[in-house]
């Protein structure tokens, strides 16, 4: 870090060129709420910081047809001020609202929360449940990666040298859809999830579940998409039996660590409870629109 260089390019091409050309340690800077903490505590010693907040594609919220696309560096605060986005994706916002304090959300982005690759990142399970796809650009061109495939382990992603997550595309919302995210923490604010659960579902006119996605955080080395848990809901009226099958599938997917914040047994049990509770909220929200 002796010779740290700071660059704030205005185009994607310049940003990927800078990152690709760097032989030392390069870091993308979005809101800095992980990067700057890591720099101050000497966990990382970057030679190059590429601030991506001057690149329009990373900071816009736009609709493509009926679908939302938002920039990877959009701050949590900016998302919270977007009324229609909040109405459309309340479950994603359940997660975003948990990113630290007002001060932290003034800067923290969903792209950074994902790419920091913590298993406990709060915006990631609801983004996975929503079916969000990351648009990535790099020296070898562009590719689209489902959010659940980005994180490969604690602190590790599948992004290659020079690659940047530009934005996230969310699917168009069918009527009678709802999503929700819940986490367990000892404190109500400013704490790291011991378990997190995101559920997104769609009902038909008769109240039967036609589509669902369930994701868990902090119960494995990476956030998880749990297909078996979603299957427990699809085709049912999300009644008690379906809810219990959902909870059992969520528990079965857990492969957590054992630490002072939660034992394996506790995290596993709570994953089932939270999946159920999140599904109940998603169901209520689906019924309301």
């Amino acid at each position, binding site marked *: 870090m002796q010779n740290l260089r*700071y660059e704030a390019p205005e185009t994607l091409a310049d940003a990927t060129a800078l990152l690709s050309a760097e032989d030392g340690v390069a870091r993308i800077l979005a809101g*800095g709420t992980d990067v700057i*903490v890591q720099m101050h505590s000497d966990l990382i010693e970057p030679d190059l910081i590429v601030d991506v907040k001057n690149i329009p594609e990373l900071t816009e919220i736009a609709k493509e047809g009926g679908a939302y696309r938002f920039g990877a560096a959009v701050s949590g605060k900016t998302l919270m001020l977007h009324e229609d986005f909040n109405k459309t994706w309340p479950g994603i916002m359940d997660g975003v609202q948990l990113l630290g304090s007002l*001060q932290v959300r003034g800067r923290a982005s969903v792209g950074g929360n994902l790419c920091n690759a913590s298993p406990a990142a709060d915006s990631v399970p609801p983004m996975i449940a929503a079916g969000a796809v990351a648009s990535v650009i790099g020296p070898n061109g562009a590719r689209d990666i489902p959010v659940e495939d980005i994180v490969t382990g604690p602190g590790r992603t599948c992004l290659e040298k020079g690659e940047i997550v530009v934005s996230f595309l969310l699917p168009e919302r069918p009527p009678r859809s709802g999503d929700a995210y819940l986490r367990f923490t000892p404190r109500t604010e400013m704490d790291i999830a011991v378990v997190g659960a995101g559920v997104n579902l769609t009902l038909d006119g008769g109240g039967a579940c036609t589509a669902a996605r369930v994701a868990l955080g902090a119960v494995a080395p990476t956030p998880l998409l749990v297909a078996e848990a979603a299957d427990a809901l699809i085709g049912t009226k999300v009644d008690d039996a379906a809810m219990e099958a959902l909870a059992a599938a969520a528990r079965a997917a857990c492969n957590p660590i054992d630490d002072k914040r939660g034992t394996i047994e506790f995290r596993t049990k709570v994953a089932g409870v939270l999946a159920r509770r999140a599904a109940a909220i998603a169901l209520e929200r689906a019924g309301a629109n």
Partner: protein
Amino acid sequence: MTKHHIRTTINGDETDVLVEPTQSLLDVLRDELHLTGTKEGCATGDCGACSVTIDGNLVCSCLVLGVEADGTEIETIEGMASGDELHPLQEKFIEHVALQCGICTPGLLIAAKHLLEENPDPTEEEVRYGLAGNLCRCTGYQKVVEAVLDAAQVMQK
């Protein structure tokens, strides 16, 4: 290390300063510009003692690089009073004795001012959530919340 020349407006004054890319905005304010009203409690975003606004956005200045401040407008605690006249929040903090050691106070005042700008008539719960990013080891928060609610009443008149 190459220094960057940045130009910002701080409390209404145009300011030029040379910063190293590793320096946080908090370090720049305190060590280069000698605006020591903004405090450091943790340098990791947890305590809020370093709260400032950048272009109206409330942030922890310890988690902003000084170089990022180029071209922005910053407000710090030094800009809160107008001359000798204290801001109503400052007066109410004194009246309610909402401080003891005082290290958290500049950050709390900046966060409270921002809160009342966005929500001029908050409930007690909204004040408590609004100030959740600011830690205080002395007061137990009760007097802080009372002072902010009282200031909100005065400011609406």
